[in-house]
């Protein structure tokens, strides 16, 4: 309950709240008033989890860029507190009636940290780089897939032509992975060089990057083009940000609690209660836009090509119990195929609940009536096997154990197979699994197209995210129509229908709403919560003990 109130506050209140949280590092307004006026200088020590080994936002899909993107880069668009596009480097825009031409007016006087001017040509070069096959962009490129070409009208005006209407376009332009990079660097440097030292126009400049160890950002003097919703102008207060990669949960928690770091982008859920109770830390648990943490059924092969077996598996899982055990009170059970904070989320499209009797009945009806020595169901001498490859890590998430044990009660043999990352990618895109799991965070309900449109089914040539291999013409039509309109009423109807349709098709089991857990020391003030990602923004953060 506390959580939902908090989320409500973060996402629905107006700019006034952003200002408030801007003063208090997550809502501690009283403490902010006592802290007095902002102080310049000081280095913020920030711990992150895993080095993506490349810091070019266009070339990676790591969630690191949600935080780094705001440190080092600027975007054309920033979402306002209601989730609508608002100006950043693009001061205004016009959309043609057919939805295929976007004319952007760009901010004047912006420069990249290498001195190159930001203008219409720079934006064009950036779009081209995101889509250049050499960039191998896993996220930025696919997010602007309908992009066709740009026409530079003048220095401050760019006309972008899309091959088809794509209403989520402005939203995705606000994401960290679509930050603007120096066109000079893009044209002169190799992809490997861009990975090591990308150049942006943001409030901080990347000054050192030692892989798997640390990243150093230094204040950019003269920066003065933050999003207007920050209600703040000028350069950053902090002299710099030092980032360390701390992979171990327990180490990341203890180094935060001991004061070695003043902020972490990843509070382990199991330590959240301790962080909350720590008088020196302010903790944030921000619900995110997108697709919840969920299991995908591979609907393209047995056993889960049979919708009754999908329903049976879903009914065999006691999702509230799983969420309670793995969430440490920090996660909300997902109700459907969109996170609650996503625009056009429909609370009436609800997943059916835990019902072991139903699971048993469906399996009996489907002919899985035999039992082998281990207690798993069989049919014609074949075991009811569910292959569930997961990424190999030192500690496998307990969620897999719980799913395995609960499904076993209904007679499913869930074989959890930890695989190295490279092999996992092959298996995933080759469709060689029955069950897969994950989250998909983006800042628009178009995530349903990314996860469930026939177009998004992975092929050897395209890394699609439709891991369920779901192909439903009716759903495709609605999701494509939603891409063609910006009318809120129509969008609401289309996305509502799509969410209900997904409940009927049962392509997976939503487990919990995706949220980010982060914390900053109480000595750090003015941290803003990002409207696209829910992550901390340090542009106008300052330190006072």
């Amino acid at each position, binding site marked *: 309950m506390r959580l939902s109130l908090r989320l409500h506050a973060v996402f629905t209140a107006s700019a006034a709240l952003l200002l408030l949280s801007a003063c208090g590092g997550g809502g501690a307004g009283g403490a902010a008033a006592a802290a007095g006026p902002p102080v310049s200088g000081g280095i913020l020590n920030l711990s992150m989890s895993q080095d993506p080994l490349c810091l070019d936002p266009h070339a990676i899909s790591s969630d690191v860029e949600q935080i780094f993107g705001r440190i080092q880069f600027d975007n054309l668009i920033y979402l306002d507190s209601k989730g609508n596009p608002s100006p950043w480097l693009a001061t205004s825009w016009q959309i043609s009636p057919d939805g295929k031409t976007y004319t952007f007016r760009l901010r004047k006087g912006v420069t990249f940290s290498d001195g190159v001017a930001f203008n219409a040509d720079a934006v064009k070069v950036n779009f081209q780089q995101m889509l250049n096959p050499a960039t191998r962009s896993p996220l930025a490129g696919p997010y602007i897939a309908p992009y066709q070409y740009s026409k530079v009208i003048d220095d401050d005006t760019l006309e972008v032509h899309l091959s088809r209407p794509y209403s989520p376009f402005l939203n995705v332009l606000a994401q960290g992975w679509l930050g603007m990079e120096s066109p000079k660097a893009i044209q002169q440097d190799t992809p490997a060089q861009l990975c090591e030292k990308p150049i942006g126009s943001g409030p901080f400049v990347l000054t050192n990057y030692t892989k798997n160890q640390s990243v150093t950002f230094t204040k950019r003097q003269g920066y003065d083009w933050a999003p207007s919703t920050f209600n703040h102008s000028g350069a950053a207060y902090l002299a710099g940000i030092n980032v360390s990669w701390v992979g171990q949960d327990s180490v990341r928690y203890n180094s935060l609690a001991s004061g070695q770091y003043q902020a972490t982008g990843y509070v382990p859920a199991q330590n959240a209660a301790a962080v909350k109770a720590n008088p020196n830390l302010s903790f944030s648990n921000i619900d995110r836009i997108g697709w919840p943490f969920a299991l995908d059924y591979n609907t393209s092969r047995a056993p889960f090509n049979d919708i009754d077996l999908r329903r049976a598996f879903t009914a065999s899982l006691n999702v509230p119990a799983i969420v309670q055990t793995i969430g440490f009170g920090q996660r909300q059970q997902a109700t459907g195929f969109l996170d609650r904070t996503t625009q056009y989320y429909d609370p009436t499209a609800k997943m059916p609940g835990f019902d072991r009797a139903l699971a048993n009945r469906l399996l009996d009806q489907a002919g899985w009536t035999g039992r082998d020595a281990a207690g798993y169901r069989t049919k014609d001498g074949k075991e009811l096997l569910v292959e569930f490859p997961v990424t190999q890590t030192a500690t496998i998430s307990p969620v897999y154990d719980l799913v395995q*044990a609960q499904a076993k009660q209904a007679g499913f043999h869930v074989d959890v197979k*930890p695989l190295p990352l490279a092999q996992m990618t092959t298996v995933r895109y080759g469709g060689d699994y029955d069950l897969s799991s994950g989250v998909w965070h983006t800042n628009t309900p178009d995530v349903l197209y990314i996860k469930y449109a026939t177009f998004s089914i992975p092929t050897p040539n395209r890394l699609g995210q439709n891991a369920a291999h779901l192909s439903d013409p009716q759903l495709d039509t609605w999701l494509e129509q939603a891409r063609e309109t910006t009318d809120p009423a129509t969008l609401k109807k289309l996305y509502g229908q799509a969410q209900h349709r997904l409940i009927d098709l049962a392509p997976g089991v939503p487990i919990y709403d995706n949220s980010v857990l982060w914390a900053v020391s109480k000595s750090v003030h003015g941290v803003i919560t990002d409207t696209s990602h829910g992550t901390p923004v340090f542009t106008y953060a300052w330190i006072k003990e």
Partner: protein
Amino acid sequence: MSALAETAAAVPGTVARRVTLRPGRILAGLFLTAIVVAALVPALLAPQDPLAISTDGAFLHPGAAHLLGTDESGRDTLSRMIYGARPSLIMGLGATAIGVAGGTLLGLIAGLGNRITEGAVMRLIDVVLSVPELLLALVVITLLGTGVSNALFAVGFAAIPAYARIVRAQAHIVRRATYVEAAGTLGIRRVTVIWRHVLPNAVRPVLVLATIGIGGAIGAGASLSFLGLGAKPPAAEWGDMLSIGMQYISNDWLLAAIPGAAVTLTVLSVTVLGRELRRRSEGRTGR
């Protein structure tokens, strides 16, 4: 254990001198016996199913229902510890067996072969020896993939070079021994001589060393599982339990401390007994 050692040290006079080391050995023996029993018949000792989860019984403190508490999925820690004894012992014995067998074969080939064979085998072994054992095991795992049997093979493979060197050195000594020369003079076939005379005499010191090696192999196996390369969750395995316990160390330190202590005490016990065995065997050969 230290409390007992102190009690023993308090016993006056010369008796104390002789007894001081003994409680350690007795305790090591008792502990290992318990581990072996647990490995042989875990179902008899374990109070509960080591894999039975309970979503509302996670992180329970030790108590009457769960003597060592429960883990993050509500599984009984004591039962998991008991079931974890078998994979650890299999790892220790199996990997050492592979190391001794492979090492003996290569050592004999090098020790009894001609100079070219010996040079080739020994240089190869030198190269492999230059890589630390655990790193070598990691290389093998990378090539073969993860899993209990691969981890076992990897740890065993990594131990081969050390045993090979010892067997070769012993074979060198034994091949010049008068009884081997005598056997040759009597016209006994070379294979028979190697099998009946060289092998038993060359391998005996290796077997003593191998006892200590078992402890090392258990530790190495647990390390691989700790890194997520050995046993597959949710299987009860000490290294894996330690690794998961680490993540929750701020919630319940026992989850890491219990499997950590089990690995440490097992390796320690094996080493204590192995050293004693070596001391005795050296004592005999010395006289």
